[in-house]
């Protein structure tokens, strides 16, 4: 498995994110000239190889969903580049952009709000065809049947309204819609966190199967490290808009470097986990130094001032921490 991945990485980088930043200015009441800056995503760089699954892990407000929405074009970044197969997403012509966008899709977290309650299953799954392609009703029907089978739903249900379906079934429908136009790259934004525990495995397995069958590339967003263990090839840990650690999945799980990653891991692994003090700080006007320093249990004085860079600590294993820098230096 691991060798396969390495090969894939050498073969082709599908998505390349370079120094991407997303800031939202928010005005402070009447004083519109004074703006606070919410730094939702800050200086993120990421490479996603064809056929891999990169997991983006972090707590709420860390910017992972903003990053996903930026990649897919729902949000315009304030800085940086996104390349899709060497084409810059923000510089290509409109026609090319449409083509690229055809190849990217998003699965939303909550299957209750991502499907129009007035639609039947068939309406939902055929929506991409109706928008994008000029094809006959018969073909659409065929596609719908094929997709329903692919995600493990009964073709008989296609004319039923979605309120008849459970969360797990809804998420399958959402997945069917997302893969309708054969995208190459799929962003899964917390696809299981709104579902029952016993359904998690079903959906994750479905995603794994589809990846193999359709040669998909995933960006898998989750707040829980445990969920991404079996599905991802790489893990990027985000904290307050920044990637603090990045590496192959085994490497991250067996040899975490950043104190935040360690805490996250121990929260799901250990019976007596590392407990981080305090709350996640607000991303409004973040501190100059290390963004994690307010909660870090290994904090030293310089963390307040020195902003750590994401450095390659070992081969293909990156981390951003002042302590590690010191150790390696």
């Amino acid at each position, binding site marked *: 498995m691991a060798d396969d991945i390495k090969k894939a990485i050498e073969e082709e980088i599908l998505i390349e994110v370079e120094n991407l930043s997303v800031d939202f200015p928010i005005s402070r009441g009447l004083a519109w000239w004074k703006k606070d800056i919410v730094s939702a995503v800050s200086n993120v760089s990421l490479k996603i190889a064809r056929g891999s699954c990169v997991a983006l892990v972090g707590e709420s407000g860390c910017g992972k969903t903003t990053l996903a929405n930026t990649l897919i074009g729902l949000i315009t970044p304030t800085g940086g580049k996104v390349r899709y197969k060497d084409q810059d997403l923000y510089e290509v012509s409109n026609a090319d952009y449409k083509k690229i966008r055809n190849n990217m899709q998003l699965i939303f977290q909550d299957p209750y709000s991502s499907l129009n309650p007035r639609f039947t299953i068939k309406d939902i799954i055929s929506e991409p065809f109706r928008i994008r392609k000029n094809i006959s009703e018969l073909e659409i029907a065929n596609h719908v049947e094929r997709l329903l089978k692919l995600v493990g739903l009964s073709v008989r249900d296609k004319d039923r309204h979605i309120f008849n379906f459970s969360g797990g079934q809804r998420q399958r429908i959402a997945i069917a819609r997302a893969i309708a136009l054969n995208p190459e790259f799929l962003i899964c934004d917390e696809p299981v966190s709104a579902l029952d525990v016993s359904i998690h495995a079903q959906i994750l397995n479905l995603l794994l199967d589809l990846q193999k069958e359709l040669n998909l590339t995933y960006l898998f967003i989750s707040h829980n490290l445990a*969920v991404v263990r079996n599905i991802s090839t790489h893990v990027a840990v985000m904290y307050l808009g920044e990637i603090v650690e990045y590496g192959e999945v085994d490497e991250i799980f067996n040899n975490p470097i950043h104190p935040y990653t360690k805490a*996250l891991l121990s929260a799901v692994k250990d019976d007596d986990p590392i407990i981080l003090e305090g709350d996640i700080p607000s991303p409004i006007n973040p501190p100059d130094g290390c963004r994690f320093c307010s909660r870090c249990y290994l904090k030293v004085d310089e963390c307040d001032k020195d902003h750590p860079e994401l450095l390659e600590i070992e081969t293909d294993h990156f981390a951003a921490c002042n302590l590690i820098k010191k150790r390696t230096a």
Partner: protein
Amino acid sequence: MSDKVLKIRSLKVIFPTERGIIKAVEGIDFEVSKGECVALVGESGCGKSVSSLAFMKLLTTPPAIIDTRVHEFDGKDISNYTDKQMKEIVGTEMTMIFQDALSALNPVIKVGRQIDEIYIKKLGYSKADAKAASIEILRLVGVPSPAKRYHDYPHQLSGGMRQRALIGMSFASNPKMMIADEPTTALDVTIESQILKLLKDLQRKNGMALVLITHDLSVVKRTADRVYVMYSGKIVEEGPTDQVFNNPRHPYTKGLINSMPKIGKTKEEFTQIPDNVPHPLNKPEGCYFKPRCSNHDPEICKLHMPAFENLSEYRSVRCWNPIEDAGGE
């Protein structure tokens, strides 16, 4: 066993609706000893929240209709207690906290005042004393600068702080039993660890009985001494936490444990429980878990609901065909 704080036999709750009678809880037995932490685990809709409200006699009747054989709290039979009698115990001797602290706290009353209510109305403090006590309890549950936070409204606190305030409120009277309904579901992973630790500390220090209602097995594993597994309105397995986790006897418990993503070892596939939770109006004949069970007997499982049998002194399971004892108890 006289140290039972709560003892319930054959609790049944139904909700009549236009489309039929929803049997939310179908005769569960439940008990908690002094200083014990018991978890009630199950997926959404299995009746665990309804049960927990019924434990405290907080369900509104109508619409709910409740029936119990035995309902004892702290040695007293409270099954026939009037509303007024219950009000003397509820909030002081037995308390409860809820999942979403933002909606569980009154949005237009200051957090401190809401805690004051317990002291003034239930414990007979004067206003000034109550304020001092509330600030003290906020400090105890780890709210930083409690005197300041006392004057905040719920929406001004962070998620973790709100949950702490809620815990403080239900801990103010030093209760004999606290029921925590999904106390960490709405929280981030690292905050979850903090809150669980806080609950555990409070429980240990004061010999309080803690009933944890949750769907998250990792929470149970870390916190509970004993666990009840609930499925579709019935308890299907009961036992000490480590025994249940190491040696599950009911196929549903095993399925749940297996579908928990594992951190330690790499696996290709997630073990999944097929199908969905049965609809409460349309429960299958015989054993409710039968349609999802890989190990069912086509004859007996289809016809009869199995009894809740004692396997050993501490273990019970509701299954015709329990999983082999793996030993190691």
